[in-house]
């Protein structure tokens, strides 16, 4: 408490935004910077929660961030970039967390198709038509 009596429970006067996040981001991954998922997850790789997966909230080994990722991907599959932006976490952290979830069978990740391997030129035609229709 400050001597002038102004200190209150919700005044965190000993740090400010300049200090950065209170919890260091990689603390959420236990300091790990890579996951067991063999390939590096692309920013536009899509994460899909397994519809018949168990309730992630009941799993004591999962962090709240793990649970939130599963929840977000349950109705709408989301890209790695969207998940990172939604959770306001660095991409590297989110990659590790998604890797954990994939290992546990709670989600799976689809690898984006490289443009040269697109099944047919029709997809690009559809993209062009879709853009024109915006």
């Amino acid at each position, binding site marked *: 408490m400050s001597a002038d009596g102004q200190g209150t429970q919700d005044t965190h006067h000993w740090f400010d935004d300049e200090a950065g996040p209170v919890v260091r981001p990689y603390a959420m991954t236990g300091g790990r910077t890579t996951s067991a998922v063999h390939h590096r997850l692309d920013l536009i790789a899509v994460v899909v929660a397994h519809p018949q997966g168990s309730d992630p909230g009941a799993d004591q080994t999962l962090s709240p961030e793990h649970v939130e990722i599963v929840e977000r991907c349950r109705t709408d599959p989301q890209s790695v*970039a969207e998940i990172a932006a939604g959770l306001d976490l*660095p991409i590297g952290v989110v990659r590790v967390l998604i890797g954990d979830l994939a290992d546990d069978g709670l989600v799976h990740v689809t690898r*984006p198709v490289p*443009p040269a391997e697109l099944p047919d030129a029709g997809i*690009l035609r559809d993209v062009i038509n879709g853009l*024109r229709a915006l």
Partner: protein
Amino acid sequence: MIFGRSQRGNAPVEPVTLKILVAGGFGVGKTTLVGAVSEIRPLRTEELLTEAGRPVDDTTGVKGKHTTTVAMDFGRITVREDLVLYLFGTPGQDRFWFLWDELSTGALGAVVLADTRRLEDCFAAVDYFERRSIPFLVGVNCFDGAARHPVDAVRQALDLDPAVPVVLCDARQKDSVKDVLVHVVQHAAQFTAPAPRQPAAH
């Protein structure tokens, strides 16, 4: 590969995702361009860097600073339920090239946004995409008050390959940005299609 996963119930659609990069110098309008067509407010992802910034960032006086944050803004266009296009604004600073490598892997194509008042800001991006054979076009963002230059003058100033399209655009206008993106996809489609083999003239 997914085995043994039942498809009963309404399993969510897993879309095919494509990405287009938006590159160019600082303040040239990359995020504005993304925002003009994105169905979501441009989102921001961040990556923490520990080593890369060390030789460059002057950390004198801030001894506790070990990390640098680099941000990438992106937007999304859902073409169909099963087909989604993402637009990524590349980090403006040249020293984040390694992030460009990651972003450009698997990219359909790129827009290099140029401001004719400081054309040199986009040299690095043009060079990057040329070297990596990523289909790109140059979009000249027509800022209010900037002198208009003919497309050919810009092409000449950037020493572009004749196949690289140059288009005038306004990054604030949705229709203009749509047009730019259509050009990118058309260019990419020509780029990825195998060139018709000419019989050798013997």
